């Protein structure tokens, strides 16, 4: 280490800088202080994030907010409510009725996982949970369609109600597919876009079919 003692800093090079580490100014929340905040603030922050993503799905424009801060609360709530609303059909008594709660759950989550794996295997650059988040949130129009269908079925179950339900389900299916494609298409290699979009189409088609064929007891 003899040579190190010869290191001399010339006098006309100013030595300056900051010794203090900037305290988390790049992240919106400061980690060490969320422990002391009231529980209401914590819950409201997460609820606001979930609500913001719902708004993004309703008006899909290419924004990276949905992708950057992914969460799976929204998909869970949507999936559970859709599965609950699909109950109470002619499933309970007979063998070949509508899907059971577990079947809907498995189809949505397993389908989303398979589509995410498919897009990653084809060379997509999106991360696993971001893709699950987008696919789950884009089930929202179909959940709204299910709600509308149940309300229409309360009024009657003739041909008119079927046509109304058909139109609503087709419109929401198109909305879901377009919304998820708007978010996911950019992260795919350009000559494989159709290969990635088709499974998404199939996924929402199956969910739409389950919604359309729901018949009450």
């Amino acid at each position: 280490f003899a040579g190190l003692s010869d290191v001399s800093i010339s006098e006309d090079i100013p030595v300056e800088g900051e010794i203090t580490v900037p305290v988390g100014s790049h992240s919106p929340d400061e980690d060490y202080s969320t422990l002391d905040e009231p529980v209401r603030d914590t819950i409201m922050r997460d609820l606001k994030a979930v609500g913001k993503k719902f708004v993004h799905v309703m008006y899909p424009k290419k924004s990276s907010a949905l992708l950057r801060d992914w969460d799976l609360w929204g998909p869970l709530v949507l999936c559970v409510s859709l599965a609950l609303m699909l109950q109470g059909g002619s499933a309970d008594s007979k063998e070949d009725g509508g899907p059971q709660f577990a079947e809907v759950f498995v189809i949505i989550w397993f389908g989303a996982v398979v589509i995410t794996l498919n897009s990653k295997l084809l060379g997509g650059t999106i991360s696993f949970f971001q893709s699950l988040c987008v696919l789950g949130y884009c089930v929202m129009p179909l959940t709204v369609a299910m709600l509308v269908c149940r309300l229409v079925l309360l009024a009657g179950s003739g041909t008119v109600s079927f046509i109304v339900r058909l139109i609503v389900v087709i419109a929401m299916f198109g909305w879901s597919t377009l919304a998820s494609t708007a978010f996911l298409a950019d992260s795919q290699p350009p000559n494989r876009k159709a290969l990635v979009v088709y499974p998404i189409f199939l996924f929402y088609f199956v969910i739409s079919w389950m919604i359309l064929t729901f018949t009450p007891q």
Partner: protein
Amino acid sequence: FAEFDDAANLLAANPNATTISIDEPAEIPKNKHGRLQQSGREEDDELLGTDDSDKTELLAGQKKSAPFWTFEYYQTFFDVDTYQVLDRIKGSVFPVPGKNFVRLYIRSNPDLYGPFWICATLVFAIAVSGNLSNFFIHLGKPTYHYVPEFRKVSIAATTIYAYAWLVPLALWGFLMWRNSKVMNIVSYSFLEIVCVYGYSLFIYIPTAILWIIPQKVVRWVLVMFSLCLSGSVLVMTFWPAVRDDNRRIALATVGTIVLLHALLAVGCLAYFFDVPEPDFPAPIIPAHNGTTVITK
């Protein structure tokens, strides 16, 4: 396109040489037409039995060099572009007599995208079409209450995925066993067989949708037509692989392939689609008290 001229000159000088082109992803759009032209000249060589199966295996070994527990290993099975998948589907629907599906379209790049998603689409096509057709058949009856029949989706999924994976496994094992006894047989890797079977199931998707039409004659004509198309793809693929073997074993193998394919189609038609009502005019039967009763 200087390299095409070189290759053409070389091939003109030595017409019997089999040319190997290694796929490079960056050059695929440029070289697509050139490679298809070269493949036209290769086909006759390969169908005659002067196969490059060992070179194919070498190329396959070069490509899939990542260890099987990494993600990159499985990415090599999805190394296809949209136009390649569409070409393969087209090749399975319009079989060209004399052209081998594997050599022409797969060309040592078997993919799992096609087989997996064609099977998934077929499962839902059969389940949805069966449900719709039963609905239309029983529509007028007062005792009929529509049920979605969701159980049948899982049954359809089990059947079709088992067919698309277990039959190729059995066939591959059988071909490997015969290959050890009789030399000089064109041999396919397991993934290529899965690929052929997966793409050959594509024709059943429009067939299943057309099975909604509640006419027996129409349904059976559709069965025959789709069976001929996809069966011919399978036969033309596997005939060169068993041709050099004992005559009876070769015929039995090809016959079993076609028979299993037919069983799948007929079984799906019988299980998922109810029998349509007969459409001959109702017979008139005289009742006991003299009035005529029309029964259906």
